[in-house]
């Protein structure tokens, strides 16, 4: 019962935050730039054309009305029209988001599995080789710039060794049927193993590049948390009950040690969404990140607003999930 109320509270909070987020994004994209329309059309465009465009886009109204219009549009899931593609921004988002989603999810899964594994074994075999390796790996991971690592790996595996593909989600002539937009999932559903394998090859490098830093963070926190938990009284009790080392670690220690790691996973989701921007740029991955970057460079502010808003929403949902799993894992949190 307490659990249910907690979820409702959090959802309510999220709605309020999203309202604020919308305001902030709108403010940034519409109020700050000097003259977006003029910038889009170029400095030499005749005044009438600029004015006409402004009228068309509804930008001659006072800013508050523009904002209200925008919010009204949002309620109807209308994010406006992209100035570059002339399509509804929502359509663009639906088109590009699955790629980012797939990249982010797979890289998080990668980071969690590898990170937890490294962290746990680092803690158990403290100061032995695997621990030292893991710690060096980790500290490098949080120090290297994502985009640089990506470029170097691209150079190595694609250009020099020709082992992995260099761009995009699939090779030129492979078209997996589009059900969810997630290449890996779709190809499994349609049992198109060719496309699946092709998709895997294409996603390996981006996932590694994107996930390296989080793997490192997760490994470090996991190690620290595990060492902390193993020192505690209830572990001694578990041992005194004659439970095997394996049970003590995996049933008693791990669940407790994992709790702080969840916070990191939540944060990592955000870092991945942000880092996806860089990764997508390097690997020509057709995702929302690259979409926003391109939109920024040409000042397509509808696209920027819509895209950023959407990403903020996804991030907030992810955090909500993290908070819920926090409460689910740690009964002390359900206050």
């Amino acid at each position, binding site marked *: 019962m307490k659990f249910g109320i907690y979820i409702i509270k959090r959802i309510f909070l999220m709605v309020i935050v999203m309202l604020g987020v919308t305001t902030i994004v709108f403010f940034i994209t519409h109020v700050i730039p000097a003259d977006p329309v003029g910038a889009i059309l170029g400095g030499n465009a005749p005044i009438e054309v600029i004015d006409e465009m402004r009228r068309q886009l509804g930008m001659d109204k006072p800013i508050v009305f523009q904002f209200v219009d925008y919010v009204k549009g949002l309620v109807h899931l209308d994010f406006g029209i992209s100035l570059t593609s002339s399509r509804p921004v929502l359509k663009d988002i639906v088109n590009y988001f699955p790629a980012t989603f797939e990249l982010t999810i797979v890289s998080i899964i990668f980071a969690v599995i590898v990170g937890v594994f490294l962290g746990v074994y680092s803690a158990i075999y403290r100061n032995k080789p695997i621990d030292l390796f893991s710690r060096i790996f980790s500290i490098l991971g949080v120090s290297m710039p994502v985009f640089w690592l990506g470029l170097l790996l691209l150079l190595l595996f694609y250009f020099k060794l020709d082992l992995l593909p260099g761009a995009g989600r699939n090779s030129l002539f492979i078209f997996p049927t589009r059900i969810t937009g997630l290449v890996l999932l779709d190809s499994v559903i349609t049992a198109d193993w060719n496309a699946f394998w092709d998709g895997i090859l294409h996603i390996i490098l981006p996932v590694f590049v994107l996930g390296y830093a989080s793997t490192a963070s997760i490994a470090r926190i996991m190690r620290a948390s595990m060492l902390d938990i193993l020192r505690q009284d209830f572990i*001694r*009790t578990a041992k005194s*009950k004659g439970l095997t*080392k394996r049970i003590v670690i995996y049933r008693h220690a791990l669940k407790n040690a994992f709790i702080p790691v969840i916070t990191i996973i939540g944060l990592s989701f955000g870092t991945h969404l942000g880092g996806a921007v860089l990764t997508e740029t390097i690997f020509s991955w057709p995702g929302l990140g690259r979409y926003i970057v391109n939109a920024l460079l040409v000042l397509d502010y509808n696209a920027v607003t819509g895209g950023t808003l959407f990403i903020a929403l996804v991030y907030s949902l992810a955090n909500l999930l993290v908070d819920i799993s926090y409460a689910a894992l740690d*009964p002390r949190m359900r206050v």
Partner: protein
Amino acid sequence: MQKVRGNLLNISKLKVVFYTYRGIIKALNSVELWMNKGERLGIVGETGCGKSVTALSIMGLIEQPGEIIGGDILFEDKLLTSMKENDLINIRGKEISMIFQEPNAALNPVMKVGFQIAESISKVKNKRIGKEVYTEVRRMLEIAGLDWERTINLYPHELSGGMAQRVMIAMALSSNPKLLIADEPTSALDVTIQAQILELLDELVKKLGNAVILITHDMGVAAEFCDKMAVMYAGNMVEYARTTSIFENPHHPYTRGLLKAVPKIGRTDELQSIRGIVPDLVEPPSGCRFHPRCKHAMDICRKDFPPLIEIKSGHYVACYLYGKEGIKNANS
């Protein structure tokens, strides 16, 4: 193996050290301890004298940075100190069980207490955790004085100290161990709850017939509960006798000091504290570790730790005042 003095447990010349940044802590110098089946032995002494370390050594739970570097622990006919971990695991939670000082911290915070008891029972009965095991869990909770319906699905932080300790007792006694080690089980509890828990232990142990080692710094508690008492100081056992004998006729200067410092109804003399402070175990005093604080210290006390001598039947002291190389002086 030295003299076998008890038919359940025999600890002989036990030496334990801890390696730390500050240096090597010589926690247990050369501990001698023994007990018989069904007996209740109290280990008393100040904080840091090595009571808990001794208990953990019996369970084989001394870990990095600690190490048993000498001595033997004989449990019935098994030499615990030379057993492999797998064999020790068989004994823990089955033949020897332990309960600890802060029961809420000693239970896993993210597991329901019913499950934690079920784990012990499952191991003892060699059955998977299921209906049968949980029936036994309920029984143990009832025996421990808890309403099983209300408690079985609670988490440790939802229990009071007294309730949590009852859970631990249920857990520990579920295997009907030959030996139950209770490390300061009531020190973290309110005085009234203390009495309840001790009563509960008394009742259960009487019925089940387990031997009990009760570790405490409270001599009153030990007097109530235990048949025999072992007094420890700075890593050694210095006196061992039946409880009545210890109180009526304390021999070791430290024991006497302890008794003089215990407030008692009817006492009219001043409480006296033992002068000096607890020694640093990294650089402990040579020989008898009590000699810097002892009124009767002699030269020989500085040289070697005094051997354990049986002064009267069943009453042992480690002190040169009574020893072969010292003055026989029963009244001091």
